[in-house]
């Protein structure tokens, strides 16, 4: 298959990003912003599966392709980027740093779509990294102290994750002997390789204890950016695990145990932390963390019991899509809420916000509830030991999410997020509502889009009301104040290196003194020696003595030896002696 569609899909956002550098092109680019993911979306929706194309000369042999799983990811990711782009276009209209935002936004988009299309490890990494790094600019965008702190934390985790991923991929490729992800999946990768890749991807996914960056970052980024960060980009971690790890083929019991334990902790710890937040977007961030805990349960079960993976995989994809759309809607809705001026409009938006909030919390028959039920069903194929725990955890996660949502709704009123001064209200409302719609319609649409993969969802029970109800009840009686703070890595580093630096300084000064002394000595010594030798004529006297000794020897040897010398040894004797004279003595 030709490479062209893939290149087009990725080149459009990239070219738009580059075009932003020219001031003349900027307005056009902003107008194009919502449509940047369209080629990729079109490819996913219209293309015949499976697609595959390769360019050996690119990077380390670039391979693109789409299969059923990645196609679904492209669809919901693209959709989210479209909505966020549409929102960003208005959100950023009067922003002084709009260009910077635009470039980063589009770069991240390129990376996000690219990694979904990539079929080899190097390219996956090649797209994963720009996405992560470009997001740094998105998180930092407002330049407020919070944003800077969040960005610093974010970049630290990104670097950590990238390194782990790099190492894991390097190991994996070395073991598989191939870059192709299918080969990676087919190989029994070693434990460290899998562990490293999992760490790298879990950072993105925000599984505890690698989640620290996520809530502050999602809270600090501008609304459209938070939407894609929380909706689209963290799913890259999930996608990475699905596509790179040999799930369903090899048993990794330890990894699975850790993953599930982390998932369970994540679901509930995120609740405890999240309800202390005052910023609504940070609350949403924790909610994302909590939701990712659910995905982690699925992944862990798959790692532990490969046979269950076939059942778990479609559910996980569905849950990812569900979370992407609902969380995207919530973030964009936060923006829409902030943009409203009148209390009536605010109320209306709040009501609209309740829809995705309940979807997320798992109101029966909503995508959230269907996903969880389907997951429970899928777990039946998994480890029987863990099954009851998982079921309980899934059910209780509904309570947790409900509580978080409640906190969120309270907070948008108590601590309303900021919005640009002259933003067009309708314009930011529209993408929000579109996503709300998509989120609500997901269970219905999924069957059409996902085909055979939709089976577990369509067969899932509608789910129970009690977790949501319990959550709402609890939320009603809860009021908590919280504070969170941390210290930056830079301070830490300075503290660590301080004694070393002091030591080096001290050593330098001592060395310098020693060197000065040595230099003085080096100057003085030869001079003194030279002068002494000169004054006492040491050399000459010594030589004189030596020569005198030689002369004595000579006197002993030569003069006595002379008498003993046989006449025949005197060549001169055979000739007239006068001939020995130099010419000028000639007679």
């Amino acid at each position, binding site marked *: 298959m030709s490479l062209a569609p893939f290149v087009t899909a990725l080149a459009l956002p990239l070219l738009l990003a580059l075009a932003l550098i020219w001031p003349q092109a900027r307005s056009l680019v902003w107008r194009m912003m919502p449509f940047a993911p369209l080629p990729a979306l079109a490819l996913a929706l219209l293309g015949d599966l499976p697609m595959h194309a390769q360019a050996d000369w690119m990077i380390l042999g670039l391979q693109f392709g789409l299969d059923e799983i990645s196609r679904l990811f492209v669809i919901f990711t693209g959709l989210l980027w479209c909505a966020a782009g549409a929102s960003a276009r208005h959100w950023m209209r009067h922003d002084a740093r709009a260009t910077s935002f635009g470039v980063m936004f589009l770069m991240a988009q390129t990376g996000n779509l690219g990694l979904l299309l990539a079929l080899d490890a190097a390219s996956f990494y090649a797209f994963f990294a720009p996405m992560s790094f470009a997001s740094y600019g998105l998180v930092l965008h407002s330049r407020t102290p919070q944003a800077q702190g969040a960005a610093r934390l974010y970049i630290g985790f990104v670097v950590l994750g990238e390194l782990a991923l790099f190492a894991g991929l390097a190991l994996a490729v070395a073991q598989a002997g191939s870059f192709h992800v299918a080969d990676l999946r087919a190989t029994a990768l070693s434990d460290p390789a899998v562990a490293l890749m999992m760490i790298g991807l879990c950072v993105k996914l925000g599984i505890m204890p690698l989640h620290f960056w996520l809530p502050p970052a999602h809270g600090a980024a501008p609304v459209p950016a938070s939407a894609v960060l929380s909706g689209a980009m963290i799913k890259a971690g999930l996608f990475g695990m699905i596509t790179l790890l040999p799930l369903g083929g090899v048993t990794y019991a330890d990894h699975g145990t850790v993953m599930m334990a982390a998932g369970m902790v994540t679901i509930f710890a995120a609740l405890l932390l999240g309800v202390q937040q005052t910023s609504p977007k940070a609350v949403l961030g924790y909610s994302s963390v909590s939701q990712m805990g659910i995905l982690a349960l699925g992944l862990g079960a798959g790692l532990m019991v490969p046979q269950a993976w076939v059942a778990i995989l479609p559910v996980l994809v569905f849950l990812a899509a569900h979370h992407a759309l609902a969380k995207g809607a919530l973030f964009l809705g936060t923006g829409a809420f902030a943009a409203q001026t009148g209390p009536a409009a605010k109320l209306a938006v709040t009501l609209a916000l309740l829809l995705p909030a309940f979807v997320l919390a798992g109101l029966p028959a909503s995508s959230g509830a269907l996903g969880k039920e389907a997951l429970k069903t899928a777990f039946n194929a998994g480890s029987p030991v863990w099954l009851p725990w998982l079921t309980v955890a899934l059910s209780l996660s509904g309570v947790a999410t409900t509580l978080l949502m409640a906190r969120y709704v309270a907070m948008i009123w108590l601590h309303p997020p900021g919005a640009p001064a002259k933003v067009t209200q309708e314009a930011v409302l529209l993408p929000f509502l579109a996503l709300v719609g998509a989120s609500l319609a997901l269970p219905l649409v999924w069957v059409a889009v996902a085909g055979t993969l939709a089976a577990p969802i369509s067969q899932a029970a509608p789910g129970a009301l009690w977790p949501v109800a319990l959550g709402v009840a609890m939320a009603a009686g809860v009021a908590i104040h919280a504070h969170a703070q941390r210290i930056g890595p830079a301070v830490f580093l300075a503290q660590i290196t301080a004694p070393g630096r002091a030591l080096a300084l001290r050593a330098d000064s001592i060395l310098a003194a020693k060197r000065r002394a040595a230099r003085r000595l080096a100057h003085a010594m030869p001079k003194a020696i030279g002068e002494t030798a000169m004054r006492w*004529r040491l050399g*000459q*006297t010594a*030589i*004189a003595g030596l*020569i*005198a000794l030689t*002369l*004595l020897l*000579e*006197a002993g040897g*030569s*003069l*006595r030896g*002379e*008498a003993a*010398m046989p*006449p025949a040894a*005197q060549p*001169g004797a055979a000739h007239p*002696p*006068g001939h*020995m*004279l*130099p010419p000028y*003595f000639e007679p």
Partner: protein
Amino acid sequence: MTPDLIYGLTGIAVFGIGLVGALCALDRLRRVLALKLCSVGAGFLLVVGAWRAPPGVPDPVPHALVITGIVVMVSATAVALALIRRLQTLEAEDER
């Protein structure tokens, strides 16, 4: 002790005295004179060479060498003395 041995040892001794003077003396003129002594010592030694067997027939080669040596030394002494004078003049000028 044969005369040649005495002669030779004297030459060596004279050379040695001159050598010590030439190297260790400080006065310029003394050093020139010491060098002259060296030269004389060397001359003695060469003359011993003419004494060789058969003792009755003197070998003229060493004589020629000695004469050459003396000529060379004379010119060297002249140059040295000229330099010493020149130096004295310069020093006198500097002191004035």
